[in-house]
């Protein structure tokens, strides 16, 4: 049986652009049809912005790769019209267990409160994730949305000409030229776009190697994240076990610094490791294996002139924490509406600098957490190892040491504190929903809150009436007045009786007040589109 990631899902087809004279000009060209490029293209297309995606390949991710998708990205996918399919297919989980040697030292639960549509996490193979994004892209095309995807179209040269980017694209039938008003590079950690434009990608390199063995097996381990320090089957190193759909299990072994790559990747050697862990009698089939090491690094800025960078092309972290694909999806979430307003001419180009500022802030947070986890999992000095081992030894017996155990701090939504787009703060209201924060889901008594939000600016009146429509500088703000429920009160009012929230198209809070004031709302909207 051929696997989904071995099937060309968007094979090369000749297009009129290849014979066009003068050179065809596109509003937005996205390079890379991975999770981030596809999500961005879907986002733009469903908001009516024409977008062309180019990829040097013609199929989904080879191997499972990114498998953990957090609640906030699932909410973004709901807005993109394909979240529910992901959750239905995915393995839902919220519990992590940490073992030291043979004993459980510590466990955590990520589901801290009820009243959210989406689970804390799902596990889903990256190839399935991309397959579902492609299905959504095709559905949009069938509805006539302006979205195009070209396989086997490899960008080989780039020039920023001030008011557009010129691209040279190689295909099986030779090369052709394209022009893009805006270019978005979603072409992964080794981003050829970044290299062609000569931008730095600085940060820390970690020496330890990790072996991923995704195996197909019938097993009755629970749907939890299990992490081992120093287990009997991988002495002195770490290991991870995680469940994916269709009986696929992610097993990840730390294998040390000086390794013979070719030897370690031999199926017999990998199977010996797996039998040591799962038992001699275990029956399994290898689906995908890979050896990787970590880098934690980012670009200085995510916007250079007419080119924007998103996902791993802009920033890279270690996988412990699921902060790679999850942060990339928050990049596309942040960028799509800004590009739309700039292309329409309703916001100044400088709004795109706020994309860089806000997502650099997110990347910094992810790199900090990821670096700390990596330092804990792979201590780089004797002193660091001594302290790490002391924490692990104490954690078995004493509660105080458990919060210090760091096997990965899992992806949480980013709040854009300090962003120039944020309006004034009102300190009487709950801190979690302050300006810059993503809206927290809530039960409205008539459906989930987040299902009612996104894709345009909105004014939300919680227990207070707001106008149904407001126009500011050519931008329509939709009003939504909601009666009070317990979760709305807890998340949006706290101890006060009513509040008004101005929301961005990416479901983040722009500003909030205790009462409706048209002048203040209009000023905050201008601030939120970069005119402040």
């Amino acid at each position, binding site marked *: 049986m051929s696997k989904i990631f071995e099937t060309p899902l968007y094979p090369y087809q000749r297009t009129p652009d290849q014979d066009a004279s003068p050179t065809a000009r596109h509003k937005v060209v996205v390079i890379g049809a991975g999770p981030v490029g596809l999500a961005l293209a879907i986002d733009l297309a469903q908001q009516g912005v024409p977008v062309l995606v180019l990829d040097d390949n013609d199929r989904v991710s080879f191997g499972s790769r990114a498998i953990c998708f957090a609640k906030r990205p699932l909410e973004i996918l709901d807005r993109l019209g394909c979240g529910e399919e992901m959750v239905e297919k995915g393995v839902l989980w919220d519990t992590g267990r940490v073992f030291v040697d043979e004993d459980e030292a510590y466990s955590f639960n990520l589901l801290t409160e009820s009243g959210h549509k989406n689970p804390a996490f799902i596990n889903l193979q990256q190839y399935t994730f991309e397959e579902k994004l492609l299905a959504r892209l095709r559905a949009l095309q069938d509805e006539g949305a302006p979205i195009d995807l070209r396989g086997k179209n490899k960008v080989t040269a780039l020039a920023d000409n001030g008011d557009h980017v010129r691209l040279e694209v190689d295909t099986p039938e030779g090369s052709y030229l394209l022009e893009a008003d805006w270019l978005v590079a979603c072409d992964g950690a080794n981003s050829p776009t970044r290299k062609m434009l000569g931008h730095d990608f600085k940060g820390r390199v970690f020496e330890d190697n990790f072996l991923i063995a995704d195996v197909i097996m019938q097993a009755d381990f629970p749907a939890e994240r299990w992490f081992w320090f120093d287990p009997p089957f991988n002495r002195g190193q770490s290991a991870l076990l995680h469940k994916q759909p269709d009986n696929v299990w992610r097993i990840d072994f730390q294998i040390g610094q000086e390794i013979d790559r070719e030897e370690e990747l031999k199926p017999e050697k990998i199977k010996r490791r797996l039998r040591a862990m799962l038992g001699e009698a275990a029956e399994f089939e290898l689906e995908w294996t890979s050896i990787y090491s970590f880098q934690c690094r980012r670009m200085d800025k995510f916007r250079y002139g007419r080119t924007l960078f998103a996902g791993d092309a802009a920033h890279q972290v270690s996988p412990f924490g699921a902060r790679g694909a999850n942060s990339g999806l928050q990049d596309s979430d942040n960028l799509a509406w800004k590009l739309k307003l700039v292309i329409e001419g309703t916001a100044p180009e400088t709004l795109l600098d706020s994309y860089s500022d806000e997502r650099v802030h997110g990347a910094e947070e992810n790199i900090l957490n990821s670096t700390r986890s990596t*330092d804990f999992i792979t201590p780089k000095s004797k002193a660091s190892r001594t*302290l790490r081992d002391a924490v692990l030894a104490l954690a078995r*017996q*004493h509660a*105080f040491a458990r*919060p*210090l155990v*760091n096997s990965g701090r899992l992806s949480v939504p980013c709040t854009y504190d300090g962003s120039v787009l944020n309006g004034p703060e009102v300190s009487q209201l709950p801190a979690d929903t302050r300006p810059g924060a993503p809206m927290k889901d809530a039960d409205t008594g008539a459906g989930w809150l987040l299902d009612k939000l996104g894709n345009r600016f909105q004014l939300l009146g919680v227990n207070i009436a707001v106008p149904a429509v407001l126009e500011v500088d050519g931008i329509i703000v939709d009003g939504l007045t909601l009666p009070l429920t317990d979760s709305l009160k807890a998340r949006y009012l706290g101890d006060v009786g009513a509040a008004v929230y101005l929301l961005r198209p990416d479901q983040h809070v722009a500003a909030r007040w205790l009462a409706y004031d048209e002048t203040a709302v209009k000023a905050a909207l201008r601030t939120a589109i970069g005119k402040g």
Partner: protein
Amino acid sequence: MNMLNLKPNLDQPDDFYAALIAAHEGLSDAESEALNARLILILANHIGQADVLTAALEAAKS
């Protein structure tokens, strides 16, 4: 009698741990051991209570 607190008591455990590791950066093994020793003595003085320190010694040994 004063009780040794073995419940989580750090506001930002990851920040503290990172600062602790950073303090050791670039030190030789002997320098690191000496740093840890000074740190223990400083913290012990801050605690001050003999029964708490005795309980801490026991917790560390077991």
